[in-house]
């Protein structure tokens, strides 16, 4: 499958993402510069992590107006898969492809650490290779990952099973202490109602090889690949 990895000025996780997709998972991938508009040749698009436009004004606030984002919106509207990792998640929220917003971490500190994620919905294009309740070990690296949404939006997310990952203890219990950022209801990753746009704060691309401490991030990418190819999951 062919992945487009979107790069804005200040993005810094594109090479990790590219490496995971091509070297580890054996997929085709290429970088998409923020001024490009043509996404036709891609099966899925990944907005990589980093600090687009220096996080000026708000995280993702300026990147969302880049030319490529119109194409990403069209791509999503056509039902194709869009994944936003970390800053990519923040951009998808800013542009309105995902509900809510990412706020400053409740303790005001930047967090670069391993987290455990509980898979809340294993019946999606992004989690099909996981089992419900499975705990994935994936690192976070952010200062503004504190998910916020108004009570109505939050209720809708829960009702439609749009919350895909919550921060949890290694045994899978969702406790306030397990959240690295004070996120509402320990939310780490969500998808849109159509089920084709997903954003998450943790970095699955940094957890695709055991030498890096965990290969659990592969579950997420393998889910996407399986969904696209229509073949059974293999992780």
């Amino acid at each position, binding site marked *: 499958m062919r992945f487009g990895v979107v790069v804005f000025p200040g993005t810094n996780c594109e090479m990790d993402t590219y490496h995971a997709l091509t070297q580890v998972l054996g997929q085709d991938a290429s970088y998409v510069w923020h*001024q490009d508009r043509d996404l036709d040749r891609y099966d899925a698009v990944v907005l990589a992590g980093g600090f687009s436009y220096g996080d000026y004004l708000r995280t993702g606030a300026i990147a969302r107006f*880049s030319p490529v984002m119109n194409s990403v919106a069209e791509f999503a509207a056509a039902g194709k898969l869009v994944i936003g990792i970390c800053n990519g998640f923040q951009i998808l929220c800013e542009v309105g492809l995902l509900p809510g917003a990412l*706020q400053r971490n409740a303790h005001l500190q930047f967090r670069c650490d391993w987290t455990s994620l509980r898979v809340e919905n294993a019946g999606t294009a992004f989690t099909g290779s996981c089992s419900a309740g499975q705990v994935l070990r994936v690192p976070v690296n952010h200062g503004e990952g504190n998910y916020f949404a108004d009570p109505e939006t939050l209720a809708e997310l829960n009702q439609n099973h749009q919350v895909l990952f919550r921060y949890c203890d290694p045994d899978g219990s969702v406790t306030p202490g397990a959240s690295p950022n004070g996120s509402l209801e320990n939310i780490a990753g969500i998808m849109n109602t159509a089920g084709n746009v997903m954003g998450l704060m943790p970095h699955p691309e940094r957890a695709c090889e055991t030498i890096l401490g965990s290969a659990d991030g592969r579950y997420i990418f393998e889910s996407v690949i399986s969904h696209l190819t229509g073949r059974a999951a293999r992780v």
Partner: protein
Amino acid sequence: MLFKAEVKVTLKKGVLDPQGSAVEGAVKALGYSGVPQVRIGKFIEVWVEGASEDAAREMVQELGKKILSNPVMETFTFSLAPSSDRLVPAVGATETATRTGVK
């Protein structure tokens, strides 16, 4: 005609403000009482060219909604007045604008 808008972006009521809480804690630590709450927002100066004050206001309103604030968690207010400021680009400003290439 040139106008200057002073835009205040604040967090909506009920939205947690970790920065405000931290400053509030520091104020209390300094020994001040009678400061029940501190909340932090943004102050943005925007100069706009407009045919009339109404047109300029309309533009600032639109900018506030579109980019200066995130309506999910913030609200904004602004005041606007004719400006006789002579705008001089800050050092390096053109360079940055060219590099980011946002249109």
